[in-house]
């Protein structure tokens, strides 16, 4: 345990990197995933703006994104990462595959949430003279908000687990830390400490998300 003073700052850095990757990926995922989920929902059969072909194509892409193991996705999007970030190494580069992996995941959850909004409410808005985009903006999204928050929480937790994997191939963060200091140096205590730290982060996020969703639902 004499090396803690050497390891502690690195652990702190790794935690910072994980939080950075996950935070930025979350923001981008929400910005892309929610519109994609909305599009999936409204283009569905019998929905606001049925577009069978578009719906099927989007559905296929989303399923593709969700069925690929993340480790394979990491490799597949490498060219895209290089194009966007200039390198495939480092926390910033890891954000690209993280986002690509999480967007389809969130989009499906968003679609499920929006479908739960009763058709009666949609019709009530249409009867008031709402345009389709008004229905999305003033009915679907606000009525589904508690469920959207819950879905986003699940996505963030998934991002943390993805980020550990991304770390292992050069993204830094807690996953990388656990492998370099724990696994490769046979330091089980460091591995466990990292796991505990991840658990704390996940627990905190889940608790925060649940509380927020519950507060919204209780409105």
């Amino acid at each position, binding site marked *: 345990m004499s090396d803690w003073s050497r390891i502690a700052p690195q652990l702190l850095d790794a935690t910072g990197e994980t939080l950075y990757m996950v935070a930025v990926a979350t923001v981008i995922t929400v910005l892309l995933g929610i519109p994609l989920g909305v599009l999936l929902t409204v283009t569905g059969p019998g929905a606001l703006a049925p577009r069978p072909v578009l719906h099927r194509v989007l559905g296929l892409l989303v399923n593709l994104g969700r069925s690929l193991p993340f480790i394979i996705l990491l490799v597949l999007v490498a060219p895209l990462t290089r194009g966007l970030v200039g390198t495939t190494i480092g926390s910033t580069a890891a954000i690209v595959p993280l986002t690509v992996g999480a967007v389809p995941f969130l989009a499906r959850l968003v679609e499920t949430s929006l479908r739960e909004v009763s058709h009666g*409410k949609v*019709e009530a808005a249409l*009867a*008031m*003279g*709402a*345009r389709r985009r008004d229905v999305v903006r003033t009915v679907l999204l606000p*009525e589904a908000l508690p469920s959207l928050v819950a879905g986003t929480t699940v996505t963030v937790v998934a991002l943390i687990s993805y980020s550990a994997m991304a770390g292992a191939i050069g993204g830094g963060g807690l996953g990388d830390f656990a492998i370099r200091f724990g696994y490769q140096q046979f330091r089980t205590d460091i591995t466990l400490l990292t796991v505990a730290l991840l658990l704390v982060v996940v627990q905190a996020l889940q608790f925060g998300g649940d509380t927020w969703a519950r507060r919204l639902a209780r*409105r």
Partner: protein
Amino acid sequence: MIELNDVRKVFPARGRGPEVVALDGVDLTVRAGDFAGVVGPSGSGKSTLIRLVNLLERPTSGTVTVDGRVLTDLPADEVRRARSSIGMVFQHFELMDSRTAAANVEHPLELAGVGRAERRRRSGELLDLVGLGDRAQARPAQLSGGQKQRVAIARALAARPTVLLCDEATSALDQASTTGVLELLRRVRDELGLTVLLITHEMAVVKAVCDTAVLLEAGRVVDGGRLDQVLARGDSPLAAALLPAPVADHRVAGTLLRVTVTDTAPETHVLQVLVGRLGLDVEVAGGSVETVAGGRHGRLLLRVTGADQSGLDRALAQLRDDGSRVERVAAEVAR
């Protein structure tokens, strides 16, 4: 004013099922300021009919005219604008759970681009009108069914519509709330001069609030008119639905007579003649009389004993000449 002309609505076949003809050549006129009802058994097309009026459902053929505008001829964005002058109230309220009562009332105004201050003022005014001025900040989850429907009515009135559509507006409510909501609907019609179209499967609702009604059966209008006139007709299927005939028990001795009661043909005259003048034994075997559309209406079943049949026939003929509606009930068809 609402006018449906030769409206057909066919739902295309789903999967292997047959296509469904929900409405089959419906003509319907609701005059401006009238409170009109549509009744009919389940599946007769009531909901489809009311949803045609604001084109939530498009007719397969035929025209829909509201306040002189042929909605079925308008392009989509004008239909949308026309909808804001047609309020609608639903069986399950359909309030937004994410909004307070006031924000729900403001919803149509937001969609119409009305400014914030004006929306506030209007929602306050409307919640007062429906008796919920003190619950403006309540969420739907905190309101009773009757209160939710009042908020929904306030919302439907927010954009100052000329027409109000009510789709089973009281069917999810208990008796007390139903009465309250019906009184409110009647009152807003009177105060705002609205044209109201209400569909329901509850005859009591029609009797309580409607001026006119139509009976829908299997997608066709089979009867209809002003309630007082409909109820005065002995052979009207709508009248039979509104005032169910008493069941005749032919096992008891005596002659059964059916009397249709109206203000102009009261049962008292029949009784005077039969009991007073002819000295017959008359008992009421069933029936009811109620006040509908401001007049007394009902059907009574009288059992007459000790009558000489030809004398009774002469008396009945005389009564009918006097304007009374009375007839023998045949043993088989006791309606």
